């Protein structure tokens, strides 16, 4: 991965209102144990990433947005290409940050993603 590599993030439909995503979409939820799941955009296209994600039971996504490795680095958020549970899988690490910092960094990341706009969107309006 290089600094411009896109890190693809699935956005849950309830995390979208009138096409606008919440900053929560760019921060780990309690079950994620501080690691935000993304896909390596140099290895998989947004549509294919969405199709794989939504083919699993109980997995819903309104579409795909992205931040770059450089944008994560700017926020001092390490990105690991962990390849688990599938080869393109990466994690953005929010470990050891206060709740306040997690929220701030998520706000900055979603700002970058919104400027980049949706890379893939489910046909149904959200």
């Amino acid at each position, binding site marked *: 991965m290089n600094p411009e590599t896109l890190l693809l993030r699935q956005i849950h439909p*309830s995390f979208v209102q009138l096409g606008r995503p919440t*900053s929560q979409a760019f921060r780990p939820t309690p079950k994620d144990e501080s690691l935000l799941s993304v896909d390596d955009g140099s290895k998989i296209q947004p549509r294919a990433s969405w199709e794989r994600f939504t083919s699993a039971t109980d997995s819903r996504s309104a579409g795909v947005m992205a931040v770059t490795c450089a944008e994560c680095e700017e926020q001092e958020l390490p990105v690991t290409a962990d390849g688990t549970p599938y080869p393109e899988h990466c994690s953005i690490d929010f470990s050891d940050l206060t709740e306040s910092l997690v*929220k*701030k960094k998520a706000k900055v990341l979603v*700002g970058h993603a919104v400027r980049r706009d949706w890379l893939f969107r489910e046909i149904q309006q959200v």
Partner: protein
Amino acid sequence: MEQEFLKPKLKGERFQGATVPLELLKDFAALQEMLVEVAKWEFRKNHPNRVRIPRNFAEGVDLRLTSLDEGCAILTISLVFASLFPTSSNLTHFEQARTDIVEAIASAEQGVKPRLPPSLLNYFDRFGRGLRAGESISFEREGGYATLTPDTRNQLMRYAQVEEWTEEDSLRVRISEVDKRHNSFEMELNDGTKLRGGLSDLYQDAILEALGNYKKGRNEYVLIQGIVRKDRENRLKSFESVEHVTPLDSLDIALRLEELAKLSDGWLNGAGRAPAKERLDWLANAFDLFFDSDMPLPYLYPTAEGGIQAEWGQNDWAVSLEIDLEGQWGEYQALNLKDNACTELKLPLGDRTGWNQLNEELRRLDMQKVEEQPSES
């Protein structure tokens, strides 16, 4: 002759500063009708051999609002007689009727069947209909107060044994059909329920515009306010009379919260607690009462923990308010995306205090926009 008769005490946000909305006076007009009928009922009970009520029984007797006390909304309602010396027995019946009505409310509060017959309890269909959630009307009685709330009124309507009753309501709907020939239209609620309403020149344009949006597939809603008819299971049956039709903002709070109320546990890809319906009702009501209508409406999202996150994009600021619905607290964070300046506050949202702080903070960010704009000179 004029005699102080009732001093109902109104509680609720709408009655702050000793004010009473004019629309609630309809309820007191219904109380007057009820009082006359209960007084007649008392007369019949006390004169079992009389077939008819005296012809002039209620003639020249009137209830009037004579004062509104400063400080809080306590109405003084006086019984006014056209003659200087009212028939003393009539006065007794009216006084007994007043006690009967107050005691009926007290019984319903305690879950006890009132002694008034169902036909008279039916007047609570109109008296108390204008009360909103969190509002009440209290009447002094021996040893305390009897308090009429929307819940007590529902209980009274059950004792009235009616199949259906009416309520003032505001519904967020889309207009799916207009039948000009029969002067009616069909509205569709968020949950798919369809109701019919009568079409009037007063709001026909708004209805036709909403129909146009519906046909174009736009997800735009209007707010319809008026009187609805409900059955004993509290299900909507029809729209009795439409009073106002207002196009809704696409970020309308109550509409969005209605949508989020449909979530169930596990909504977030197997995880995620669903927000509780009654807590969302509280939040919708609190926004309605306390959020400054001059400020932009927020985007609203569920949180994994069963709360709600409100977000605003104010110039260079990204603002979030994470709302704990159980504790009625909000964690406010405003981050300036250019210079990283940040304000964080914990806001108590159970009353006006925290909402005032929120309004003030948002206004401060809004003012920055004005200050930062270059002058035109």
